[in-house]
């Protein structure tokens, strides 16, 4: 008995082991009703942190996942790791510089990020783009769309655990990227479009590479898709997963292939025509299922339509100048304009306000990936953790655009 009394008690603060709650950072306090709901853990539930350096989050996205065993109960994406304040930078740059700032937003399809502000500024300046420049823009944008969609194809398979397809899809993408590099001098951030036209006419190297690629493009795309589309593992993991219905898609503000996969044939190239798209013949591929597989299939169909458009553009491209006559210093009259293009991920829009100076007074950049990322929560609730990645991959967000 005496020896026991000289020994310190287990409750003695000098030797006491801290309770488990002190091992971790304190849980964040809820700022909103929704966050309070999210932070409230029920029996058997726990939080798991995914990202921001997770290979499948397509950039630096952090997702706090509330799980019950393997099942996702709820999740809360945390954005802002890549926030550069592009809108503010554009307000402090002149109109030409603003186009450079928008370039790296969607770095896998940066021509679309240029096309939207350029469209808005051209409306502000009330300038007509020469026909040849319009055709060149359509040509380069469709090439960039194919490059983006082929990369998506590889990414999606990679996120589901297949390593081979991304190596194959990079063959196509690299060829297009090199082609555009021959034209613009840059591999990824082209900065090729100018207010009133494009920076330089098509050159010989671009045309010979394009001709070479076009002769085998369709066959190559077919062989790449054959690698994935007929893979039973891929199809069984994506069919019926993350099903989005038409009404929800419309109310969530979804655009692009993700919306067309639910059966809505909405395409800005058709519904809000710009450049020479009204004169070109192409289909707007849709699917009715709205699941991950449908979102994948719509994109594959779009690659084929893009090849068709490029074919027509090459046959119909007129000669002429590629820049409109404009003063060097862009100083639009005060006003407002909204320019939008159909990017590989959806409606990419820029709302520009001019106050008569050489800098945009306000430049709002709308990125479709930002809206689509909201769907990750609703679409993965009740699924397994591994399916979160499959759903995210099929929505195809690019964090550069989400975080701006």
């Amino acid at each position, binding site marked *: 008995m005496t020896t026991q009394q000289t020994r310190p008690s287990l409750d003695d603060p000098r030797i006491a082991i801290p309770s488990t709650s002190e091992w971790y950072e304190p849980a964040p306090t809820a700022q909103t*009703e929704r966050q309070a709901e999210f932070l409230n853990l029920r029996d058997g539930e726990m939080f798991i942190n995914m990202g921001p350096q997770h290979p499948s989050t397509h950039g630096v996205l952090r997702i706090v996942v509330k799980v019950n065993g393997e099942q996702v109960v709820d999740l809360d994406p945390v954005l*802002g790791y890549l926030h550069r304040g592009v809108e503010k930078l554009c307000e402090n740059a002149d109109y030409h510089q603003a186009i450079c700032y928008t370039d790296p937003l969607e770095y896998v399809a940066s021509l679309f990020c240029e096309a939207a502000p350029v469209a808005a500024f051209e409306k502000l300046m009330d300038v007509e783009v020469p026909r040849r420049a319009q055709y060149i823009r359509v040509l380069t944008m469709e090439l960039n769309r194919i490059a983006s969609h082929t990369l998506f194809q590889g990414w999606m398979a990679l996120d589901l655990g297949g390593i081979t397809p991304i190596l194959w899809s990079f063959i196509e993408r690299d060829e297009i990227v090199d082609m555009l590099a021959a034209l613009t001098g840059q591999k990824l951030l082209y900065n090729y479009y100018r207010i009133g036209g494009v920076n330089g006419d098509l050159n010989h190297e671009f045309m010979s590479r394009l001709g070479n690629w076009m002769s085998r493009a369709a066959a190559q795309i077919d062989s790449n898709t054959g690698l994935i589309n007929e893979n039973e593992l891929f199809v069984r993991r994506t069919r019926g997963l993350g099903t989005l219905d038409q009404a929800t898609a419309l109310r*969530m503000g979804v655009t692009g292939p993700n919306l067309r996969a639910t059966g809505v044939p909405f395409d800005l190239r058709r519904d809000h025509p710009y450049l020479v798209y009204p004169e070109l013949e192409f289909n707007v591929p849709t699917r009715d299922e709205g699941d991950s597989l449908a979102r994948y299939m719509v994109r594959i169909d779009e690659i084929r339509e893009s090849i068709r458009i490029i074919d027509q553009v090459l046959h119909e491209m007129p000669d002429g100048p590629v820049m409109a006559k404009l003063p060097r210093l862009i100083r639009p009259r*005060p006003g*407002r*304009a*909204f320019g939008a293009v159909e990017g590989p991920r959806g409606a990419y829009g820029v709302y520009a306000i001019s106050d008569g100076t050489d800098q945009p007074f306000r430049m*709002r950049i709308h990125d479709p990936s930002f809206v689509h*990322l909201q769907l990750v929560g609703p679409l993965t609730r009740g699924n397994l953790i591994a399916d979160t990645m499959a759903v995210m991959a099929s929505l195809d967000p690019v964090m550069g655009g989400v*975080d701006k």
Partner: protein
Amino acid sequence: MDRALASALQERLGATLLAPVRQRFDETEIRVSIADAIPTLRALHDEPNFAFEMLIDLCGVDTGEEMQVVYHLSSSTTGDWLRVIVPGVDRNAPRVNSLVSLWPGAEWMEREAYDMFGIIFEGNRDLRRIYMPDDYLSHPLRKDFYLADDASRSPAAGVRNMERAGTPADATRATALRKSSGA
């Protein structure tokens, strides 16, 4: 430019419009007050002759004198973009109604407008910062927020803010949008 849309909007919403319908290129623009905003957007969404079912964009604008909330809508009935501007939001206590009941997808765009401008959207259940950290204090896209190393527009033009010992008294004066733009 869809002339029929302008006349239909004028006829249906005539009393609530703060200014006549404006059209330029493929854009149609209307202005409604804060109180009328959500009923107007609901009517544009629900009524079959408008059927503006798609919310393409929601953003805040700081004109230097007031805040605005701007919506861009798209419909299958017309090739025009519809821009709904809600002007006259108080800069010192910006507060409007949330669109989440109509378009749940507006939630994050409202969070962004709150983060960047401090506009409070009543009815948004998750109105917290989305890009900036939770303990951040200012709202970066407001016109009285100057970039640290860009002094070209500030009252202390020519002096780099980072190198300045103190903040001049009028450094928070906002750049205002010129009246001629009709904003």
